[in-house]
């Protein structure tokens, strides 16, 4: 498990970027409804994030599932920590927990008016 070279790349991505969404497609052109929901939530909150398109790399597409022990895409990481997939992000957004979590981690949140 740990010698998977994809894991090093993932560790680097989630270390160098405060907020990372592993997704299908890009933030501008999501190619999956569930990925699109997470992009929308982040946009609503005005949070800068790095979107990583797993469709561009089959190794990453499987690798992120193994790395997170989570079998589906999208996946949100904040400050190197796995937060959840689409359902969890949506629930946390609606309850206000996501804003709290981001603020606690020092991420700037600027909710759209």
């Amino acid at each position, binding site marked *: 498990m740990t010698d998977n070279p994809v894991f090093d790349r993932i560790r680097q991505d989630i270390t160098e970027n405060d907020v990372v969404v592993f997704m299908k497609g890009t933030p501008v052109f999501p190619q999956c*409804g*569930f990925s699109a929901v997470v992009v929308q939530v982040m946009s609503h909150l005005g949070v800068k994030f790095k979107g990583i398109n797993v469709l561009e790399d089959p190794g990453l597409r499987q690798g992120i599932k193994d790395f997170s*022990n*989570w079998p589906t895409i999208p996946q949100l990481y904040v400050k190197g920590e796995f937060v*959840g*997939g689409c359902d*969890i992000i949506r629930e946390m957004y609606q309850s206000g927990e996501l804003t709290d979590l981001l603020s606690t981690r020092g991420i700037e949140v600027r909710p759209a008016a």
Partner: protein
Amino acid sequence: MSMSQNLERKLREAFAPQELTIQDDSARHEGHAGARPGGETHYRVRIVSDRFVGLSRVERQRAVYAVLGAEFEAGLHALQMQTLTPEEAK
């Protein structure tokens, strides 16, 4: 056995849910990535179980995923989940 029946059996065994609803959303995702001609790829489940007490959202969903490994290998592609304790479901 259909995917729905499989899901129901596995989820009942693992979580002894007070409430379990399984909805096949495959038709709504026809033509999307992960869909396939026979359907049985996209599901939505609501599980109310006291097994979720004390677990975070991530832990609850991981627990559900953990019992459905074979189903994911057999073509299950997406599972929308509501995982609630009996208290939260009131």
